[in-house]
Every structure is written in C-alpha cells, then in structure tokens.
C-alpha cells in the first residue's frame, strides 16, 4: 500500500483532463452550437458587410480577414466557458465532493476542465481557419502568423476560462454561471467589431472600444492577417492578454481555494 501513497500532480491532471475530454466528446451539444454561431458570424458578416471594405479607412483590406478574428474570439469564449460549466455540473450533482475526498491535487481538479477547454478551443480555431482558407483567406504574415493567431486565441481562452471557473466556483449554480457568460456580448460587440476605430460613429462606443481588451486582441490578429509582421499591435495584444490572465487566474485560484476548504 505504501508505494501507492505518492500523489502525483501530473497523473491527476492527466486523469481529470481525460475525463473532461470524454465528457465533451459524449455531449456534442457542448461545442456544436458554439461552433455554429461562430461560423454564422463569419458567413453572415462576410456576406452582408464585405462591401464596406471599399471604404478608404480599410486601406484595401479584405473584409474576410477583418471579420475573421470576431468569429475566432467568439468561438474561444464558448470553448473556454465550458470549463466553468463542467465544474458547476460537478458541484451541483455532488461529484465535486467525491473528488475532494480523494488525495488528488486540488489544483488538478480545476485544471483538468481548463486544459480540455483549451484543446477544444484549439481544434475549433483550426477548423475556422481552414474554412476561412477555403473562403479565400490570405495571411499576410504567413504560417508564423497563423501560429501567432492560435497563441493569441489560447491566451484569450485561458483568461476567459479563469473567469468562468472563478464564477462557477463562487456561485456553485448553473444559472448564475450561465449568466456570467453574458459578458460575452459587451466584450465582442463594444469594440472594433465590424469597422475600424476611425469609422465608429458614437463617442461612447469609441470610449468603450478603447477600454475593451478585446479591441487589442482583434487588432493584433488583424495585423498578422492583413499587414504582416507589425510589432506594436502584437506587443499590445499579448500584454493585454497576459494582464487579463493574471487577473482572472488569480480570481479562479482564490475562488477554488475557498470552494475546496469550506468553513
């Protein structure tokens, strides 16, 4: 018995990640609607709005490349939000307590669904990029640009997963956790979603877009799709994501330590 008594963080994390992946695969409804909405964004906005890229503010950019980040980022939010949803389910049906009663790493319990969410998000993003490629996407920064976009998406997903896990562990019920995902709307739409900053009419929306971290993510992705290698948008994008991750992961870690040691 004694040789078994070595808890292994890596094994625990693998076990929890595998379990989350199985759960996602057996419940296609977890990811299919989210993927469809993202592709819907891509097709509808590209189909309906691509004419406006004739405007001088677009500087000759292809509208597909302009709108693609919106589709990618919205898919990422859905994928990352799944991590929180998975934990809420465990909390609600009591399986979470069963896991807490094992000597497994507490961090691994929370990390498993997050890693699975990241993998889901990665596959979704690649799928969206492949579809965009067949629609005629050209990446100015080449293959390296695609890698940058994937990294940005993962960073963003991690930040959102931290947020969704934090909310889940704090509220411990599905409705509240679901309500928490509504930040999706301001994050996606109060930004340079459809047109460049210069073309935004309302002053309040300009202010919102400046504050909204998503704006810097969109700009970073657009720079590699449209302009090639430009340092500033990328630096800003990665900095904003690093900052967001620091905040939301701290939030989720604090929530997790409260949830696992109830007073």
């Amino acid at each position, binding site marked *: *018995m004694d040789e*078994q*008594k*070595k*808890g*292994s963080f890596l*094994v*625990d994390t693998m*076990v929890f990640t595998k*379990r989350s992946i*199985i*759960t996602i695969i*057996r*419940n296609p409804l977890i990811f299919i609607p989210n993927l469809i909405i993202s592709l819907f964004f891509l097709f509808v906005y590209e189909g309906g709005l691509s004419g406006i890229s004739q405007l001088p503010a677009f500087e000759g950019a292809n509208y597909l490349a302009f709108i693609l980040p919106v589709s990618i980022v919205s898919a990422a939010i859905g994928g990352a939000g799944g991590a929180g949803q998975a934990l809420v389910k*465990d909390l609600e*049906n*009591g*399986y*979470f*307590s*069963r*896991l*807490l*009663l*094992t*000597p*497994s790493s507490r961090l691994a319990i929370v990390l498993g669904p997050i890693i699975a969410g990241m993998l889901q998000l990665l596959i979704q993003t690649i799928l969206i990029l492949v579809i965009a490629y067949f629609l005629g996407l050209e990446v100015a920064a080449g293959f390296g640009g695609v890698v940058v976009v994937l990294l940005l998406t993962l960073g963003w997903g991690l930040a959102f997963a931290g947020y969704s896990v934090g909310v889940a562990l704090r509220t411990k019920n599905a409705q509240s956790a679901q309500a928490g995902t509504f930040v999706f709307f301001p994050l996606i739409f109060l930004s340079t979603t459809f047109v460049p900053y210069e073309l935004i009419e309302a002053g309040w929306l300009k202010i919102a877009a400046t504050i909204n971290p998503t704006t810097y993510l969109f700009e970073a992705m657009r720079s590699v799709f449209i302009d090639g290698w430009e340092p500033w948008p990328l630096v800003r994008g990665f900095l904003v994501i690093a900052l967001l991750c620091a905040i939301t992961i701290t939030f989720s870690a604090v929530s997790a330590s409260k949830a696992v*040691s*109830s*007073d």
Partner: protein
Amino acid sequence: MDGSILVHDLVKTYKGDVKAVRGVSFEVAEGEFFAFLGPNGAGKSTTVQILTTLVKPTSGTIQIGGVNVNEQPERVRWNIGVALQETGIDPVLTGRELIEMQARLFGFTKKKAKERASELLTLVDLNDAAERPCGKYSGGMRRRLDLALTLVHKPKILFLDEPTTGLDPSNRKAIWKEIKRLNKEEGTTIFLTTQYLEEADQLADRISIINEGRIVASGSVEELKRTLGFDAIQLVFHEPEEAERASVVLNDVGENIERSREEVTIYTENGTQLLSELVRMLDEQQLSPKTLNVKPPSLDDVFINVTNKQKERV
C-alpha cells in the same frame, strides 16, 4: 496509521450563529463498528463532513488513525473511504470508467486500476451495467457503485452517511451484508450514521445517540437499554379517544408517557409492580385496553426517552 477515530470537544458553528455541533466527544477503536444515531438535522452529516476533511471544525481536536485532520488532511484522505448521503456521480461516465478513474487518483497504475475495477464491479454486482453511463442507473445501483468507489483503495476506516436512506429492502439488505463483511472479515473500522434504529441495532457494536448537536447517550445496544433502567408498558385501546383519556389519567404514573393514535406507552422504573394500580385507575374511568403488555425497552424506547428528556431540560 491505524483504524481508530478520536474526537474531542468538536464544535461547529455556521455563519449567523447556527450551532450544528455543540461539543461532541467520542472514540472508536480499530475494527469497531460504531453508529451515530439521530433524527434529521441532529448534526450527523456535519460531523461526518468534518471527520472526512470536507468541512473545517470551529474548534475541537480530531484524530483519524492517529493523524490530526486539520493538520494533515491529505494523509487522512489516503486512509478513509467515504460514502456521502448525496451520492455524487458523473452521469456521463460508465461505472467501470468511474471506478478506474477513482483508482488512478489513489495512485493505482492503469493496469492495476483496471483489475481493481473488475473486482469491485463483481463485488457490488454491477457487471451487467458496467459499460453503461451511470446517469442511467437506478437509485440502488448508484448506491452500490458509490460503495464500490468508496472501497477502491481498501480504506482502513469507512464513513457511511445514511447509506441506506431511500433504498428498498432488498438493496438495503445487500448493503448491510457488504458492510458487515468488511467489518468482520477485513477488520475495517466503520463509522455509520443513520436515522433507522433497526439499522444501528442490527449492525453496530456501539452507538451514540445525537440530538440537536449533542451526544445524549452512548454505549452498546444492550448497555443503552439497560442504563435506561425502564420498562415500557404498552396499552392498545379500541379507539383513539380512549387512548387520549387514558394518557390524561395515567399522566402521573410513569416517568414518561407517549401516545400515538390507539396506543399509549408508559416508561416506568418497575413495570410489573405498577400494573395493578394502573389497571385499577383505568377501571375507575371505565377504560379497558384491548391489549396490555410490559416489555424491556427497545432501542426505539431508548431513543424517544433520551430525546424527550433533552426537550424537558430546555
């Protein structure tokens, strides 16, 4: 690490000054079968949650197998098996997958985890359902799977929080049989909570009765019945009204009197001596019971008596 449990002056107060456990102390020796008996809301589940590292106590010392729960919760988790009242099971995974996963978390290799899962599925008679998602299991099957999950790492101490509540008799008997076997054959220490007197009576070596966060009586089943030192005189009448009148008339006779519909039970120190006087008093009121008998107290009687005494004190 042995199989003992030591609890000293355990107190748990929740926010808003809700006192769930108000100073509970007890000891369970290795290999002993100990039952915590009490009504809903007595503090049984809270005590189990504290003893099993899920909830932190407000104050008090707890040693599980000689290890302090507050200081080394992880060491405690390696040695205990816990079946909680609300069985939490991931509905998407199959029974086999859940047991294998549980085994992996307890440090089994993949191969060993598979072997253990097969053993346990046979033990709890779930072989036929092993490849089905647990969401499709019946209540009894879930409880059996939960027991299997609890036993994965062959724990020295088992905590079972109302393991048979809501089960039909055949499932209940199956669970009883298995926990008896674990205690007798494998020497597993068992801490069981229950609201069923019959269950405690049938299974436990020793019982503590808990009510409103305090232990009100402790001992072996026989001791409890004896220390009560009471006989129960049971009178059954034809009509509830007769029983009602009788309970008023006989109010001063015994220490304690209980009435439910046609039945009146009087707890008294010496039942046989009191009988003639009792019959005379009933005669005067022209009350004649359908049946009358004197019996040594059952565990039910002990339970009713100690919880009533507590009410009187408050």
